[in-house]
């Protein structure tokens, strides 16, 4: 049930929010009301209520959208209600949907978490709306069930790959690797040069999820080798253990660990400490999601200029592509009474004005999923490198946006591989057992 754990962890663990606008008091008050269950569900008082999670990133983006929209429409009042992230947030969203107590609009994950909301029974189908035409097909795949379309994207595309230290690469004369062997050669060069850990891993308190990146961010390479991987995997026909391209993610982690490329304190380092180690040049490669850039910007804005990004390399240098994660979306629950006002806001979000507002009010960490939207020229180097994968069309969604099957124990299993407790082959078959439980729980065919 936690397909987007890396993304969600970042959202849930964000630093305390600091909205500059006057919306703070309103937000805080409505958050209190939401928790006590006193808030009104529909738009009966003429105000548009929107439920969002309490992460820094979502808050910035939504506040920017609301400010721009109310400036253009002074007669509309919008209130943002906060909810916690993580599994507690999932519970609130599910409960309020079931009881018809959901505000006019709400922000939530796309992909398999959306499917768990039973969207055909709870959400309004937006497929017929004209403003959905400019939403890119990649994103539509993540918010559709059958022919129905449910969400309007808020925020930027996220890439899963390797954040790296630009200064170290320059100093050692290294090139961005396009194959796994090149990556390992770079690691060896960094190790030989001394003073820096080639690969940062962080298995400390609350950070075990970071160990999954070698497996999850390898999906582009898996799909390159096995185009029908996602369907066959969902249908219980192919598995990690018996598909060499899929097992490679586990093997890569084992290789890196066995070669002694990991930072010495990998077992106790936390996610935030790992980012700090990367920024300080103590480690060179950190396999991570690009959402980490928001985190780095919040703590050490200057460090962003020294950090680059490349996709997790596979076997084919000519087809070195990126595994991507989709941002969350705004959804319209069926319980909303005044759907006209809500849809007008959605139309604004799904427009170039909408993404310009987001660009103005929040940090841009990747391209938008709205056609015609542009990313400013002066983005940090890592964002520019992320953008280039999208420009050249070398992207594929992470497995969790293609299949509802994700086992809950992956992070423990990958921690064991990285720590040398379990071999890659053993880990792959153990994970196949783990996902079986999830598939059975979802009642999928063939399990």
């Amino acid at each position, binding site marked *: *049930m*936690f397909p987007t754990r890396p993304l969600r962890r970042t959202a849930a663990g964000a630093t305390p929010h600091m909205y500059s606008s006057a919306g703070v008091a309103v937000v805080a008050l409505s958050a209190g009301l939401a928790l006590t269950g006193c808030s009104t569900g529909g738009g009966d008082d003429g105000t548009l209520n929107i439920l969002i999670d309490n992460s820094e990133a979502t808050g910035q983006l939504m506040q920017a959208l609301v400010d721009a929209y109310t400036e253009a429409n002074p007669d509309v009042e919008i209130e943002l209600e906060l909810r916690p992230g993580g*599994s507690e947030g999932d519970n609130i969203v*599910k409960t309020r949907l079931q009881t018809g107590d959901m505000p006019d609009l709400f922000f939530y994950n796309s992909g398999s978490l959306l499917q*768990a909301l*039973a969207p055909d029974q709870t959400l309004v189908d937006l497929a017929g709306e004209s403003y959905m035409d400019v939403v890119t097909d990649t994103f539509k795949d993540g918010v559709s069930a059958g022919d129905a379309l449910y969400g309007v994207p808020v925020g930027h595309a996220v890439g899963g790959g390797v954040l790296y230290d630009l200064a170290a690469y320059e100093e050692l004369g290294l090139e961005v690797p396009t194959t796994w062997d090149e990556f390992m050669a770079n690691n060896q060069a960094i190790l030989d040069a001394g003073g820096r850990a080639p690969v940062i891993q962080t*298995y400390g*308190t*609350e950070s*075990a999820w970071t160990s999954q990146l070698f497996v999850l961010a390898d999906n582009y390479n898996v799909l390159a080798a096995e185009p029908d991987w996602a369907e066959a995997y969902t249908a219980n026909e192919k598995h990690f253990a018996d598909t060499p391209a899929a097992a490679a993610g586990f093997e890569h982690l084992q290789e890196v660990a066995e070669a002694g490329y990991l930072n*010495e*304190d990998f*077992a*106790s380092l936390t996610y935030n400490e790992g980012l700090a180690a990367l920024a300080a040049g103590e480690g060179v490669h950190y396999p991570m999601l690009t959402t980490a850039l928001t985190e780095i910007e919040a703590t050490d804005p200057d460090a962003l200029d020294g950090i680059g990004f490349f996709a997790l390399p596979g076997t084919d240098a000519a087809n070195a592509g990126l595994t991507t994660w989709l941002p969350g979306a705004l959804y319209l629950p069926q319980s909303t009474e005044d759907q006209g006002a809500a849809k007008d806001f959605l139309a604004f979000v799904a427009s170039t004005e909408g993404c310009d507002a987001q660009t103005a009010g929040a940090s841009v960490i990747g391209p938008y999923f709205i056609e015609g939207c542009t990313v400013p020229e002066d983005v940090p180097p890592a964002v520019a490198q992320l953008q280039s994968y999208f420009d050249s069309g070398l992207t594929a969604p992470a497995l969790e946006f293609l299949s509802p099957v994700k086992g*809950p*124990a992956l992070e*423990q*299993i990958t*921690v*064991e591989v990285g*720590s040398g*407790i*379990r071999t890659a082959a053993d880990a792959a078959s*153990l994970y196949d*057992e783990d996902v079986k*439980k*999830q598939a*059975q*729980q*979802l*009642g999928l065919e063939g399990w």
Partner: protein
Amino acid sequence: MATTATAAPPRRRRGHRSHYPLWFYLPAGVVYGVLFIAPTIASFYFAFTRWNLSGTEFIGFENFALFFSEPYLFQGLVNTFVYGVLTSGLKVVLGLLLAVFLTSQIIARGYLRSVVFFPTLVSTVGVGITFTVLMDPGDGLVNQALALFGVDGPGWLTDPSLALISVALVDVWKGVGLATLIYIAGVVAIPQEYFEAARVDGATSAQRLRHITLPLMRPATATVIVLSLIGGLRSFDLIWAMTQGGPGFTSDVVASVIFKQYQAGFWGLSSAGNVVLFLIVAAFMVPLYWKLNRKEVDR
């Protein structure tokens, strides 16, 4: 009536004549039934189902088969026994020694007693977080102190072979105060005449400990074993606060495995785990409790 009552054995008298009508039990019985019996029976049912938001599906013993067949679930079972026996054993030994020490004529006895008892009062999660910091392999106070003596301290919580033992030691640190308290009560309750008589007979202090204190502390020992073993087998909060069962699955116990299954939405499987844990604790404790109390009666 009064004559028959005095003639009857005490046991029977209690059964026949109660001062209060039976329905006085009702309020407590309802609370107990609704909050304890009903959920317990319900969880026995749900343990046999695959349970999600849309409903339950009866799947027989599949959850139990799964629970015992998965390597890391089974590992949790083994760890639970190791953890329970280790913490219980250490609490008995250390608690007894501390109690004997703290009832002897020493300076600042009252102060030392409160020092020993103090960790029991602190929140478990707080203790867990504090010791996680103290036991950090690099910056932790424990390893820095060891480094002063030239000892290269291990990764207490990050070394797969040490993590569970480290958590168990913290559990002992936190729980030994209660064991000591029970033992102190036991030592103080021993009549001084025995010690005086032994002293007159020329018994050394070691002999007095061996032949007077230890045998007469059996009830206290039974209480400490029962309490700490139940606590150890069910232990969850400290392990979750310190390692979350990690690194990997190496310090998982049954309770943390159950919690993870619940988090993942496998409610049926986690109910099955709870039933297994309930049966294990009962299978362990009922005979043990019976045996320990029997010995007490025999004396």
